[in-house]
């Protein structure tokens, strides 16, 4: 058990995490409208950030840095949905309506511009 094991573990987490960030970024560009783009951004916020932070924790070992990384993770989990929701609300009140595939999209017929 030396540093090599932890290095391998770090790579096992950081590489998939990095790939998820790239996929999320591609999705944010290729999706059709602002509401659809929020979902790939969610991938970056959740699993992407999570994997990278856990990977970094293997580097810092049992130290205060690991606790700080865990705290970053926790705060990210509480704040990112709030930010996403605020963004969605801002878009709605600016008059942007989501493009939907579903025919009976009456859910927002009343709201939207409130």
């Amino acid at each position, binding site marked *: 058990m030396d540093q090599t094991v932890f290095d391998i573990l770090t790579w096992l987490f950081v590489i998939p995490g990095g790939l998820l960030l790239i*996929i999320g970024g591609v999705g944010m560009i290729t999706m059709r409208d602002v509401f659809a783009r929020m*979902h790939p951004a969610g991938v970056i916020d959740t*699993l992407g950030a999570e994997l990278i932070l856990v990977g970094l924790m293997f580097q810092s070992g049992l130290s205060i840095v690991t*606790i700080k990384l865990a705290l970053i993770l926790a705060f990210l989990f509480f704040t990112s949905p709030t930010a*996403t929701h605020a963004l969605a609300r801002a878009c709605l009140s600016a008059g942007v309506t989501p493009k*939907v595939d579903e025919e009976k999209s009456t859910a927002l017929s009343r*709201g939207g511009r409130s």
Partner: protein
Amino acid sequence: MGRRGNIGVLHAISLAIGLAALWWLLSGYTIPLILALGAGSIALVVYIAHRMDVIDHEGHPIHVTWRWATYMPWLGKEILMANIDVVKAVLSPKGRVHTSVFRTKATQKTELGHVIYANSITLTPGTVTLEVEDGVMIVHALTRGAADGLKSGEMDRRCTAVEGHPEEDR
């Protein structure tokens, strides 16, 4: 919501403990002078929070901590599955991306319960809460799977369970 008395003191103590733990874990200092300064700033923060009347069951929900801990693993699993779903939708959008906006029932009784549910929906990639009304959430979903998963109501049920019985807890 000015709930004073024993419960208020309990919340203030738990806020102070939480702040102290956070302060110490972020700084790592053991020098007495610095520790005293930290204790002083914590006392100031608790006093200001008390003056602002934000130390209550809503701003500082200690009563759901235990049930919340049992909810987290399930939410983590859901987030993992949802991530895979959205990644697939990004890599091959044809036939997978099926956006929809729909209403779904929220059976939580308190605002805290609604916040937990709405945040859980948004945290899960593939679904974003657009609006929260009385007992109803308006949700935007990226794929059919994400929409159906939410419509099944399991997340709603679990969030209501986290909320527990608000009357007894207060």
